[in-house]
């Protein structure tokens, strides 16, 4: 799971506006989840084939004594050729810092994202639902670890990133600061929150930084199970008793706008975007992705027999897209700045889990040392 929104208020001086003009690179937007999976597969093929393409006129790359200008030209040429930057390549400091921040915050989102759903593991309505939810939450932990590993290739240690999260000095997606009040919320999270995450993440499979792109391909493949299980929960409830249908509708009502907010502020106010586009870390603007998500959800909601809580949602023949009501961006800002319904609870829970797990790490360390000592004795 993941959103774009944490890129909002931090250090950024002014808002670099990215309206229009950013032509869809690497495949245009598509409409349905199966198309999204096709895009993941296409990104994976492209990743394999990219290495065969040559970097314009600079096949050999800069030599050992290349100066910074030369290194920068080669870096730009690699990006322009849609090739991947790999960990030990020269890269501009800004590129490195941007990636560390984005990948770390993405990893933190996966880790904090275990909490809202973890809340329902012990109360899932059947053993099968419970097993599925456990597997899903375990996946989120796995996604967090893939991403921490990708961040580490940029020269930052996982322990440092974990400390930054625990200290509240790095952000995670604001969506996880909303509570899961009923079982239907687990369905709504799967359908809407994971759905929005997939729309956000699929273009990242083509990100210019190799380790991040590879981690995203892995994650996107696993994420589609998450979205379908959520959709199935809602479909079952929506076709169950009247009370169950009301519960499903209530969950969609509460999760719809926060899910739209996951794509971050409107393009006009979005920081970091322009540079990220140039570096091909990011390939579509927040508003393009949000629109794509809305267009997918309308049809899916009709199959569920549930309403999206937006009276102004209607097809715009001219734009060939749905007009919709924007989420409350003031609320998004408040939640990002720490004033959401569950911010303090999420942070406190993570700190407690880390502290209470210390003995496990210590025991593993002690065991490793004992084993190593025994090996030395045998050898001696």
């Amino acid at each position, binding site marked *: 799971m993941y959103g774009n929104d944490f890129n909002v208020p931090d250090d950024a001086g002014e808002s670099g506006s990215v309206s229009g003009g950013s032509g869809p690179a690497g495949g245009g937007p598509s409409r349905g989840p199966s198309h999204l999976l096709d895009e993941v597969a296409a990104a994976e093929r492209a990743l394999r084939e990219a290495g065969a393409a040559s970097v314009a006129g600079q096949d050999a790359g800069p*030599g*050992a004594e290349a100066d910074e200008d030369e290194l920068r030209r080669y870096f730009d040429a690699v990006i322009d050729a849609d090739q991947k930057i790999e960990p030990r390549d020269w890269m501009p400091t800004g590129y490195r810092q941007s990636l560390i921040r984005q990948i770390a915050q993405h990893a933190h989102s996966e880790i904090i994202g275990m909490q809202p759903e973890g809340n329902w593991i012990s109360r899932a309505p059947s053993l099968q639902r419970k097993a599925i939810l456990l*597997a899903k939450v*375990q996946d989120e932990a796995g996604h967090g670890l893939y991403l921490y590993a990708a961040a580490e290739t940029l020269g930052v240690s996982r322990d440092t990133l974990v400390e930054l999260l625990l200290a509240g000095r790095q952000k995670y997606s604001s969506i996880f600061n909303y509570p899961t009040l009923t079982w239907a919320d687990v369905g709504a999270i799967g359908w809407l929150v994971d759905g929005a995450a997939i729309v956000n993440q699929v273009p990242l499979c083509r990100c210019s930084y190799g380790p991040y792109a590879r981690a995203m391909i892995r994650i996107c493949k696993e994420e589609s199970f998450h979205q379908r299980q959520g959709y199935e929960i809602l479909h079952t409830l929506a076709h169950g008793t009247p009370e169950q249908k009301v519960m499903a509708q209530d969950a969609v009502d509460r999760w719809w706008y926060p899910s739209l907010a996951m794509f971050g502020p409107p393009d006009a106010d979005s920081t970091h975007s322009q540079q990220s586009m140039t570096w091909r870390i990011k390939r579509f603007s927040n508003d393009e992705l949000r629109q794509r998500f809305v267009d997918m959800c309308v049809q899916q909601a009709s199959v569920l027999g549930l309403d999206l809580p937006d009276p102004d949602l209607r097809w715009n023949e001219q734009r060939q897209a749905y007009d919709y009501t924007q989420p409350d961006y003031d609320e998004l800002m408040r939640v990002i700045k720490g004033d959401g319904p569950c911010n303090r609870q999420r942070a406190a829970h993570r700190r407690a889990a880390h502290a209470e797990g210390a003995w496990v*790490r210590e025991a593993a360390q002690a065991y490793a040392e004992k084993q190593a000592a025994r090996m030395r004795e045998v050898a001696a």
Partner: protein
Amino acid sequence: MSDGWPLWEVFVRPRRGLSHSHVGSLHAPDAQMALRNARDLYTRRQEGVSIWVVPAAEVVASSPDEKDTFFDPAADKVYRHPTFYEVPEGAAHL
């Protein structure tokens, strides 16, 4: 914290007949834990039939800065490829 836990690179053989490929990395206090963690992290969906874990510090890599000189000797030896040779007309199984 897991301070000082070494980094391990993880390689998975997806199926019999294929070689191990690098899939990512993880931290663990020793090789056995690294292997177990790698199983939980990288093969939750039967992605492999065999796993290698290698201490990242033990990996010796060529430097991207020396890419030029390091791989240069292979650049001018086109005769190492079969396509270099012209096969006379009529010669079969070549």
